[in-house]
């Protein structure tokens, strides 16, 4: 593993080094694992990248539940490939976080013990097959807005992971949209199912971009250090401007009576977001929080003997090679 060079505000040369560091970021240079970085930069990145990795790992559950029920060979193959990609994204991201001197085991332990967060969106249940389409189109659509921004991130390993992830997410988005548009023009039951899914996922999707800028204390520092290059409200606006016209065109109606187009700014403007619910869900009081963590813990516990066997086998192979 690369030796980390971390600066603390009490270090004698901190001010000088911080200036160099910020100048590099301002020039658009990437910060790489062995480079000097402020402790707070590292802490924010570990928090964000590990949360992101956990989101992929937990995010396999709501969609994975529908692999066995996918209604055609093509949809089943697509969904398998998509959930497989999510596992792959989790893997790149855990590796990206490892470059900051934290192990996958530590990150997994933090998740399973309830000390780490993952994207709030996965604390909602997938009730019908249409949810899979809506998640692909809207939830992944919002994720892509965020991830395209993170591909510009100042930390090299995170930025490069994002470039790969975005390429695959584009396919997730496309397949979701294609399914939703098909069902929106389908049988009466299909149309009802897809509108119902939109009703349930709309607000949680808008909340995915995070609190309003005025309630997001980390944002200014994250912007200055190039960890983020856009604010939460900017991301949300980009999402709305792309997706609202397409939803309306398909005959689907977002469940927001105040949603309107603003001629002056060219933006779609949403009504009040139910933030009380957001804060409740994020603090553990959502419909699926317990179930998601329990599923992760159960897989972890049931896999323990397998991981022990792998290690024992590995040790034996090494010992034999040494003989």
């Amino acid at each position, binding site marked *: 593993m690369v030796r980390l060079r971390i600066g603390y505000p009490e270090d004698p040369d901190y001010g000088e080094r911080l200036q160099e560091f910020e100048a590099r970021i301002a020039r658009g240079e990437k910060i790489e694992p062995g480079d000097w970085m402020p402790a707070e930069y590292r802490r924010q990145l570990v928090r964000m990248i590990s949360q992101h990795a956990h989101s992929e790992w937990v995010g396999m559950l709501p969609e994975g539940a529908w692999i066995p029920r996918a209604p055609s060979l093509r949809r089943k193959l697509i969904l398998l490939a998509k959930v497989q990609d999510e596992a792959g994204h989790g893997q790149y991201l855990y590796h990206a976080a490892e470059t900051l001197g934290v192990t996958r085991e530590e990150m997994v332990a933090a998740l399973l013990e309830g000390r780490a967060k993952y994207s709030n969106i996965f604390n909602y249940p997938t009730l019908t097959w249409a949810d899979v389409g809506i998640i692909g189109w809207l939830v992944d659509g919002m994720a892509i807005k965020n991830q395209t921004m993170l591909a510009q991130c100042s930390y090299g390993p995170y930025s490069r992971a994002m470039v790969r992830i975005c390429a695959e997410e584009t396919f997730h988005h496309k397949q979701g949209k294609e399914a939703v548009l098909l069902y929106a023009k389908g049988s009466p039951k299909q149309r009802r199912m897809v509108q119902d899914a939109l009703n349930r996922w709309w607000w949680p999707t808008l909340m995915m971009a995070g609190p309003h800028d005025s309630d997001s204390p980390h944002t200014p520092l994250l912007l200055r250090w190039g960890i983020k290059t856009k604010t939460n409200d900017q991301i949300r606006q980009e999402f709305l401007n792309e997706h609202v016209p397409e939803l309306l065109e398909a005959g689907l109606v977002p469940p927001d009576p105040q949603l309107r187009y603003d001629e002056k700014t060219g933006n779609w403007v949403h009504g009040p977001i139910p933030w009380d619910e957001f804060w409740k869900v994020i603090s553990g009081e959502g419909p699926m929080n317990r179930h998601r963590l329990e599923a992760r813990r159960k897989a972890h516990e049931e896999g323990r003997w*397998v991981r022990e066997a792998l290690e024992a086998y590995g040790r034996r192979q090494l010992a034999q090679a040494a003989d």
Partner: protein
Amino acid sequence: MNLDPYLKEALLARLTALADDEVVLAQRLSEWVGHAPILEEDIAIANLAQDELGHAKMWLELRGELDGSDPDRLVFLRDPLEYQNAVLVELPKGDWAFTMVRQYLFDAYEEMWLKEAQKSAYAPLAEAAARAHREERFHLKHSALWVERLAQGTEESHRRAQEALETLFPYARQLFQPLPGEEALVEAGLVPEPKALEGAYLEAVGGFLRRVGLRPPEGGYVPKSRQEHTEYLWSLLAEMQSVARWDPEAKAW
């Protein structure tokens, strides 16, 4: 190639059996996705399920060329009693040892069958077998390595692998039972001879298992035809077909 009606009927039955094994096994594999013991195996098992399902699609498309049937209708709207899969693949997923021992037993069979089937006098079958065989070699490597690691890992993993083998081994032998009318297919050089493959299989698989320290059991119940199933098939298919059957008016999914 012009097939007489008798050969065509027998070939349809073989293609259906091949596809049904893959569909049902893919269903059991997909139950693991998101719940594997390590993240890398979530990736691997999703990949296996895609490959098996891809093979099923390929066999059903060959069937469709012969009788005009629609692969999706066959998979998602056919009754459980018409499924022709072997019992081996329908048993519940069990623990990781059960899943990997089953996968090994199936992969070793499929790899051999596909290798021989590349010589089929029916060109579409020979070509399909060649395509699938490339993937199946990787599957076999993956599952054989898991069986070895579990057999030689800890006492617990060895015990679990041996227990899985006791349950599963007799069912693997069902894979080699000829289907009704299959002698004629073999005679015409269209498909491999199941009983000849069985001898080679028992030798290769038995040898590997003993080398890694497992004991293939003697005896055990071997289902006599592909009409035989366990109580597990109905609920597996009920879940798999639930969305497709939910809306009879839906024209497309």
